[in-house]
């Protein structure tokens, strides 16, 4: 019995200490030491640097605006879809999934193809008006805000939509039957009830914007516009600068502090305001759009065409372009970029293999660990459970750039004779740490639904703990295991933020390939590869939805 406990506990402890606790401590250690001696020099250097304050301001500036914009769009769309007689609702519900499924850095590349300095919009504008200057400058703050908002509004949309659909319809009905107009009902009943959800959605958008690396990297570097994540990236790579890793570590703590502060603020403001929203019984009343119905329908359609379809079409056309700079036309279209990609650049295949293997391995590790963690969380009363939970959530709660830096600092030098740096293992360790919590959630939820009496019956009939786990518990939670596996694997396939700092010769990921090709100025090739990545992302997500919904019904 104790041996089994040890067998279960040992790998769990090893992973959580080795992949989470130790790197976190090393990160903090590097922030407050120089050459092994404790000092506040890094902190002082960061706080006295006017440049850093500007970068911090940039981070907050773009995130706040993107949150306002994305939050408003997401909330508005959720209300239109859930509470009005908007035509074509089912199509919109599906279409609104699309921006959610596209990796943010791919969205940035797509917007570059559409609205970049020589993107289709500006080319058309200059051709039509004869203007010498582009209509819109996508490099810099405004472009970053736009693409951040459009990449993240689905988070606000989903949160508010869920709240609207759970709301007790009787409340709105009561208002309406007491003579309140639809607008008044919306203002005085619906809005206050979903306010916590709007706030939660906005916080989610804000945090994702703060921690995003791909969008500010692609749209910020050319304008020399840095936010905290890209500044940390640049500082890590700036080895000419003395103590660059220590400074990057200090910047990381600053970034974590800002994100943590926002979370704490949210708890304080929204903490006591969770209204008793029951599961909806019956249909909630629908606000009629009346004579505006068609106009609003057309407006939403145009919005989706302009923000989802147009950028994707633009990057697809770029990927199919033969010669850059020639006028657009059939004769300038062809598949040659894809041909170059697949037959002349063998590293593309290896990167794809690496990404798939990394995602599958990380997800498998994560699910196995998730079983142990969920078991401890739900079934035992050991002390330090809260600490365990914190360790699991931490690598997902902090920005990916910070996780990558912690991994570099922890594993740059061989540790206990094991050298992880410059191998694929450091990426794997980072992925397991980062995506573990995604696998734990469904598994822990499934554990709570399996009543202990089943296990107890097995145990009292003489089955060992491992036997009862194997024969009773695991079969009952298998659908949760599968969905946990996919939830962890899918974001890992198209991951960029961690791998861009951790890759090495032979260990590149597909996200890194797209990013590097873009950095090198290979517009046509990077667009073609972005199309491939998008296809992989959409397929794996469809698979995920098919599998999880299929298993949930079974």
């Amino acid at each position, binding site marked *: 019995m104790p041996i089994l406990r040890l067998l279960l506990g040992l790998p769990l402890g090893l992973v959580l200490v080795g992949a989470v606790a130790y790197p976190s401590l090393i990160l903090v250690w590097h922030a407050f030491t120089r050459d092994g001696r404790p000092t506040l020099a890094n902190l002082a250097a960061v706080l006295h640097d006017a440049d850093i304050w500007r970068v911090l301001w940039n981070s907050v500036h773009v995130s706040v605006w993107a949150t306002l914009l994305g939050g408003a769009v997401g909330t508005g769309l959720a209300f239109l879809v859930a509470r009005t007689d908007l035509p074509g609702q089912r199509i919109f519900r599906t279409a609104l999934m699309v921006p959610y499924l596209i990796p943010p850095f791919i969205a940035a590349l797509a917007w570059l193809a559409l609205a970049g*300095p*020589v993107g289709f919009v500006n*080319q058309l504008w200059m051709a039509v008006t004869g203007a010498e200057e582009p209509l819109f400058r996508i490099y810099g703050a405004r472009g970053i805000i736009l693409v951040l908002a459009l990449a993240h509004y689905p988070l606000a949309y989903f949160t508010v939509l869920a709240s609207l659909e759970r709301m007790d319809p009787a409340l709105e009905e009561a208002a309406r039957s007491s003579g309140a107009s639809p607008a008044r009902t919306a203002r005085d009943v619906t809005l206050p009830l979903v306010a916590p959800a709007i706030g939660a959605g906005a916080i989610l958008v804000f945090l994702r914007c703060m921690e995003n690396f791909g969008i500010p990297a692609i749209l910020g*570097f*050319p304008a*020399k516009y840095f936010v905290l994540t890209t500044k940390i990236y640049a500082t890590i*790579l*700036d*080895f*000419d600068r003395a103590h660059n890793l220590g400074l990057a570590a200090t910047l990381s703590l600053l970034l974590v502090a800002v994100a943590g502060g926002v979370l704490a603020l949210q708890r304080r403001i929204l903490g006591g305001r969770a209204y008793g929203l029951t599961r909806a019984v019956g249909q909630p009343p629908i606000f009629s759009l009346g004579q505006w119905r068609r106009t609003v329908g057309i407006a939403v359609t145009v919005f989706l065409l302009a923000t989802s379809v147009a950028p994707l079409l633009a990057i697809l056309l770029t990927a199919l372009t*033969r*010669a*850059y*700079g*020639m006028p657009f036309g059939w004769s*300038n279209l062809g598949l040659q970029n894809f041909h*170059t990609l697949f037959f*002349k*650049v*063998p*590293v593309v295949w*290896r990167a794809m*293999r*690496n990404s*798939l*293997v*990394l995602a*599958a*391995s990380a997800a*498998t*590790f994560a*699910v196995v660990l998730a079983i142990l963690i969920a078991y401890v969380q739900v079934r035992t009363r050991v002390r330090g459970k809260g600490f365990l939970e914190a360790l699991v959530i931490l690598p997902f709660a902090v920005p990916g750039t910070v996780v990558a830096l912690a991994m570099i600092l922890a594993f*740059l*030098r*061989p540790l206990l004779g094991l050298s992880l*740096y*410059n191998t*694929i293992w450091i990426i794997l360790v980072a992925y397991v740490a980062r995506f573990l919590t995604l696998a734990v959630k469904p598994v822990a939820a499934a554990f709570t639904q399996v009543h202990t009496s089943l296990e107890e019956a097995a145990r009292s009939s003489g089955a060992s703990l491992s036997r009862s786990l194997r*024969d009773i518990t*695991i*079969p*009952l939670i*298998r659908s949760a*295991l*599968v969905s946990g*596996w996919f939830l962890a694997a899918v974001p890992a396939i198209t991951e960029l933020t961690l791998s861009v700092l951790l890759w*090495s*010769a*032979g260990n590149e990921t597909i996200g890194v390939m797209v990013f*590097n*090709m873009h*950095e*090198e*100025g*290979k*517009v046509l*090739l990077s667009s073609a590869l972005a199309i491939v990545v998008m296809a992989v992302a959409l397929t794996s997500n469809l698979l995920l939805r098919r599998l999880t919904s299929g298993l949930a019904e079974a």
Partner: protein
Amino acid sequence: MRRPMEVAKLIGLLLVGLWVLGVIWAGSAEVSAAAPVTLYTSESLDKVNEMKLDFEKRNPGVALNIYRSGTQVVISKLQAEFQAGGTLADMIWMADIDYFEDLARKDLLAAYTPPEADKAPAKFKYEGGRYHEVRLIFNTVAYNTLRVKTRPSSWKDLTDPQFKGKVGVASPFYSGAAFSTLGTQVNLPGFGWEFYRKLKGNAVVVEQSNGTVAKKLATGEFSVVSVVDFMVREAKAAGSPVDHIWPKEGAILVPTPVGILKGAKNPEGARAFLRYLYSPEGQRLFAQQGYVPVLPGIEGPRGVPSEKLEVVLTDQAYIGKHREELKAKYRELFELK
């Protein structure tokens, strides 16, 4: 409907199987080829990969592993690895000859001169064969053929007022080629800082990389630019409306040396790759990719003028001594941060 147990076992087996397969697969690259040759480079990704395929085909059993990024990123990675106690790289190949000089001074480069290399001009073998110029890149003047009616002929055309605001160059802070050009021209009779002041007067746009300059030349955002030659030939071959000239004052050679590191894990394989780069096959592939071969007798790429070409060698001695001063003056002149 199968029993849940069987389904669970099946899924479990599948997961474990997939994982084992994956680990074997991921590990296989390192296992099958005992020690691959690892190259850290800033070479064009697609070109160096094409070269890898050809090299591996001609040298069965030797695998070439490539880490490719911008020159500055590659140097940063090397520096980090040296600090941490050793790099994975066997060879390096990039556009910062200063860095090679520095490594040679620290005795970190292994001297090796393949037999074929002796046919190349001696000036392209540096420090007793510690690093080599295996093919030639030049900085030249290029123009957009849809925007520019009369073909330019000189570096001075970049300061022609008719192109005001439509002139692009790469930043010497990012591009090794741009830095070599700057350091050479400020010490060249008839140029000097005066030339750069005139460029500024012509509202020149300083872009980060040569790739971006070439891209924006193709789209017509720029009319004339200073850019490395092969990118223009490549774009022209693909059908873009661009061409480069051979300036009458001479094109500037941009050093992009290759060297083998001491302590390479596969020194024999690294030497084989250097031999390949100098081989007629390697040199012909360079020409096919648009580079000027370093060996005499190999036909150059299409689009290189056939007459005797004026070449200005990089003023390495001056650049080495005035590195910081050059950067500071440039920064001040163009008000870069």
